[in-house]
C-alpha cells in the first residue's frame, strides 16, 4: 500500500469536519466524521475537538510522530442536503476500512461543496409563506397573515442581497429587526383592524434563533460544554440585535405620531 502523506490526512480530515460544522451538523457528528476519515486514511489514535468556531484534529503517523492541525470557521448555516451527502461519505469510509487513494475523498468533498442550493425565487417564496403560516399558528387572523407574508418576503429579499456582503451577523440581525418593526408599525398606524405584535412575531420566526437555542442546550446535555456555551452566546447576541433593531419601529412611529 502506498503511504499517504500526513499533510494530506490533515487537510482532508479537517475539510470533512468543517463541512459538517458549516452546514449545521451537531458538534459530536463533526468530531465523529473527522475521526472516521482519519482512521480510513491510516492515521493512528486520531482524536478531534470541535467548537462552533474551530475544527481541530490530532493523530500519530506510522513512524510514531505526532501531527495536529486546525481550521477557523467563520460562516455557519444549515444545509440539510450537504449534511446528507457528507454523512453518506462518512458511513462509506467507516464500512470500507482503509482507503489507499486520498484523492477519492478529496473529489467527493469538492463535489459536496459545489452542490447548488434552491434558486433565490424559491427561497423568497418559502420565506413569505413561512411568515404567513407562523402568523396563523400563533393565532393571527387572515389579514394579519397576509401582511406578515409581505413583510417576510421583503425581509428575505434584503437578507439575500446582504448575503454577498461581508457584514457581521450582529449587524444583519440589527437590520432585520428594524425592517420588520418599521413595516409592522407602519401597518399599525393605519386604521386597519390588525394585531401588530402577532404580525411581527410571525415575520420574525425566520430570523429568530430558536433552533440555535435548542442546539446549544443539546450540546450542553451531550457534554460539549465549550460548543454549547458559545452557541448560547451566539443566540443571545442575535436576539439582542433583533430587539435593538425593533426599537427603530417604535421610535419612528412615535415621531410620525408627534408630527401628525
Amino acid at each position, binding site marked *: 500500500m502506498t503511504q499517504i502523506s500526513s499533510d494530506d490526512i490533515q487537510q482532508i480530515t479537517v475539510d470533512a469536519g468543517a463541512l459538517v460544522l458549516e452546514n*449545521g*451538523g*451537531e458538534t459530536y*457528528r463533526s468530531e465523529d466524521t473527522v475521526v472516521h476519515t482519519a*482512521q*480510513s486514511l*491510516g492515521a*493512528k*489514535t486520531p482524536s478531534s475537538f470541535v467548537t462552533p468556531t474551530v475544527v481541530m484534529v490530532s493523530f500519530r503517523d*506510522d513512524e*510514531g510522530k505526532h501531527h495536529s492541525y486546525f481550521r477557523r470557521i467563520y460562516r455557519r448555516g*444549515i*444545509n*440539510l*442536503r*450537504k*449534511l*446528507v451527502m457528507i*454523512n*453518506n461519505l462518512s458511513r462509506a469510509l467507516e464500512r470500507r*476500512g*482503509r482507503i489507499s487513494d486520498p484523492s477519492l475523498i478529496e473529489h467527493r468533498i469538492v463535489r459536496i461543496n459545489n452542490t447548488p*442550493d*434552491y434558486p433565490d425565487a*424559491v*427561497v423568497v417564496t*418559502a*420565506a413569505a*409563506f*413561512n411568515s*404567513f*403560516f*407562523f402568523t*396563523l*399558528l*400563533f393565532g393571527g387572523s387572515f389579514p394579519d397573515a397576509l401582511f406578515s407574508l409581505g413583510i417576510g418576503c421583503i425581509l428575505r429579499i434584503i437578507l439575500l442581497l446582504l448575503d454577498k456582503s461581508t457584514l457581521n451577523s450582529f449587524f444583519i440581525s440589527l437590520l432585520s429587526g428594524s425592517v420588520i418593526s418599521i413595516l409592522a408599525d407602519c401597518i399599525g398606524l393605519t386604521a386597519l383592524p390588525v394585531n401588530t405584535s402577532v404580525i411581527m*412575531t410571525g415575520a*420574525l*420566526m*425566520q430570523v*429568530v*434563533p*430558536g*433552533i440555535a*437555542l*435548542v442546539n*446549544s*442546550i*443539546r450540546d450542553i*446535555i*451531550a457534554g460539549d460544554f465549550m460548543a454549547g456555551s458559545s452557541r448560547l452566546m451566539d*443566540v*443571545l447576541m442575535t*436576539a*439582542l440585535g*433583533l*430587539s*435593538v433593531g*425593533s*426599537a427603530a419601529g417604535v421610535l419612528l412611529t412615535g415621531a410620525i405620531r408627534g408630527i401628525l
Partner: protein
Amino acid sequence: MTLVQIFEAWLWSFGASACFAVFFNAEKRDIVLSAVLGSIGWIVYLAFKSSGGAESIGYFAGAFSVAVFAEILAIVLHRPATVYLIPGITPLVPGGGIFFMMRGVVRGEFSEALSAGYGALATAVAIALGIAIASSTARIVAIAVKGKQHKIMEETDMSVQLPEDVDNPSSLQ
C-alpha cells in the same frame, strides 16, 4: 378542541415546517416528511396543553415524538436524523420568547424580560431533553443491532477486512 381547530393547527404547522425545510435546502422528499413530523409534534403539544398539563411537559412530549419518528425515518432511509429533526421542531422552538426577553432588557422592563427568558429557557431545555432521550435510546438500539450483525458476519465470512489494530505495538516499527 374541535375537529376544525385540530385540522387548522395541522395545516399551519405542516406549512410552517415545510417552509423551514426549503430554507434549509432539504431534498423534496425530505421536505414533505419533515413537514409531517412538524405537524405531529405541534398536535401532540396542543393535546397536552389543552388537557391542562404544564406547558413544558407539552413541549417535551412534542419534541420527543418528533425525535422518535425522525430516528425511525433515519434508520429506514439511511440519512442522519437531523435532516428530519431540525425542520420538525421549528413550530415548537422558543424563538419568540428569546426575542421578547431581549426586547424587555432593551426597554428596561425587567420583569417581562425575566418571565419571557425563563419561559424560553424552560422550553428549550424541555425540547432538548425530549430529543436527547429519544436519540440516546435509538443509539442503544443501534449498537445492540450492530453488535449482533457483526458477530454473524465474523462467523460466516472470515475474509472480512477489519481496520488495522491501532494499538498494536508491532505496527510502530
